[in-house]
């Protein structure tokens, strides 16, 4: 059915497909770099929306899993490049090993942090997820062996099944495919029984518990899946920039991820991706225009929060049936 929502979704897909052509036409690779970044942040935003939008679980520490994913890739490559084994393992530069590893590390952290913070709700949950993310931030600042404050550079991008992915177009297609997979996966998840339980628990935890669903376990599973997706995004980000630093885990970044989701539109699958794009475009424009861009961006975020909590996708969706 071609309603406004589906039309807008189609436009987003076409925009992603058109990026390489646009880059050729404009004669600049910057478009591809920016669009790659949109795809990567889009993955994080989609994963965060699964928690915030559907589950009403406001995680203010999502940057932690993003950062852990990045560090997992960087550390594996660091040990390989410096020929120092870690726990008897020589490290790796192969994406097909490093990226699942990044997801596993992020998922494991999400399991532990989620198990603790999901014992609480509401404002406790916000503060605790924030605090644990900050803990990991300080941990990486203190780990001088892996660069501490200065971060850690990757000597090369990972190899993908043995192939180089240094070409910006190749890497762009990898990131866009990863984004598409994540969107499809979360679409499948959210329309399944699992997603229904999450949404039901967001509306009334007591009702779902009375129906016999172990709400805590469902939420924890969602938290871990979202953490793994963010970890994958972190791995991609580390590859794009060939650099990771504690900044990846900072609380500001967690806040920015939330801004992307809200700006795009909660519970809308494609909305958060649009939000990520809008965020990056605004950021790159404002930070180019003035050094004090936060003075403009801050009030903008405030206005979105107060006056447009449904986000861009809310405006697109209009009167379409939800």
């Amino acid at each position: 059915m071609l309603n406004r929502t589906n039309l807008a979704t189609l436009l987003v897909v076409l925009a992603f497909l058109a990026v390489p052509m646009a880059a050729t036409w404009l004669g600049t690779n910057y478009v591809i770099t920016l669009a790659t970044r949109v795809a990567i942040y889009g993955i994080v935003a989609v994963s965060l929306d699964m928690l915030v939008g559907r589950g009403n679980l406001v995680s203010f520490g999502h940057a932690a899993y993003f950062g852990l994913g990045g560090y997992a890739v960087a550390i594996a490559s660091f040990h390989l490049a410096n020929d120092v084994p870690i726990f008897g393992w020589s490290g790796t530069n192969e994406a097909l090993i490093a990226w699942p590893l990044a997801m596993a590390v992020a998922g494991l952290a999400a399991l532990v942090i989620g198990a603790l913070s999901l014992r609480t709700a509401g404002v406790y949950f916000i503060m605790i997820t924030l605090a644990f993310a900050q803990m990991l931030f300080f941990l990486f600042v203190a780990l001088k062996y892996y660069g501490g404050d200065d971060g850690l550079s990757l000597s090369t991008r990972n190899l993908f099944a043995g192939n180089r992915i240094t070409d910006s177009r190749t890497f762009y297609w990898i990131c866009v495919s990863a984004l598409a997979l994540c969107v499809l996966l979360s679409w499948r998840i959210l329309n399944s029984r699992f997603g229904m339980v999450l949404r039901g628990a967001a509306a009334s935890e007591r009702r779902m518990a009375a129906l016999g669903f172990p709400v805590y376990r469902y939420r924890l599973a969602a938290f871990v899946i979202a953490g793994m997706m963010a970890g994958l995004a972190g791995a991609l980000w580390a590859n794009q920039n060939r650099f990771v630093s504690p900044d990846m885990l900072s609380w500001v970044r967690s806040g920015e991820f939330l801004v992307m989701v809200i700006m795009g539109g909660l519970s809308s699958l494609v909305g958060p991706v649009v939000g990520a794009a809008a965020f990056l475009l605004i950021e790159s424009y404002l930070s180019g225009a003035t050094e004090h861009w936060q003075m403009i961006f801050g009030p903008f975020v405030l206005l979105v929060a107060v006056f447009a909590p449904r986000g861009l996708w809310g405006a697109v969706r209009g009167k379409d049936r939800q």
Partner: protein
Amino acid sequence: MQLFLEQLLNGLQLSLTLFLLAAGLTLVFGIMGVINLAHGSLYMIGAYAGAYAAAKTGTFWLALPAGLAAAALVGAAMEFIIVRRLYARDHLSQVLATFGLILFFNGFIAWSAGRSPLLIETPPQLAGFVEVLPGLRYPAYRLAMMAVGVAVALGLWWMISRTRVGMLIRAGSDKREMVEALGVDIAKLFTLVFALGALLAGLAGVMVGPIRSVQIGMGEQVLITTFVVIVVGGIGSIRGAFAGALLIGLCDTLGRAYVPMLLKSWLSGPLADGLGAALASVIIYLVMALVLVIRPRGLFPVSG
């Protein structure tokens, strides 16, 4: 032993600073149900206003009222213009809006005062040392800070349990609609409480000026530690804020002083150094995790 006592005093001093911030934050949350991320910005504004006044007038004794007034005024304006619109909204909107405020204030300070850190000079009357115990000399200024923290804690306790405003605050945090129905101007009360919280944050900000540098981002760092404090203490409870501040302040200070040392006696080499520093910096979060496992609603949970 002497080192231990000194660290203990340092820990107490950090605890009391944390308490000033936690008290305001927990009051605002307890009575209005608003989570205010920009509480740290008020701390920063107090510190910057103090540093500005100190640089202009050359005395700490004018920096202090300047910092207090700036924080309280900005706090009251913030409540009146923005936070008021957020009472009925979900936590997500509150988090986002106050996140926007943080970005704005950080940008504003960078634009108006520059990015280089400032320092407020210690007042000459308090520049010396006091011999607290035979052989243990401790900076007079830090002792004064602790005295102020204790005085504020006692004052708050008196205000909340013994005065009419305190009664309204207690009633408001319990049943807001009921207080309103009794004819109390709840909007005015909210502005007042918010400004009071801002004032305490500003006080903390000016007071740390002479011992730590005044810089952008100082607010967020302390804000997150403050979150840990009130999560440990129980959100909405002043008593919890005090207990949480003591626990976290002492664990942090003593942890940083002793964990690397202890670790070195077991392990050796650069690994011990790195691991010790890393462990010391995460110790308060581990304490928080432990409290959460045992008492998910904090040490002094507020009923209801």
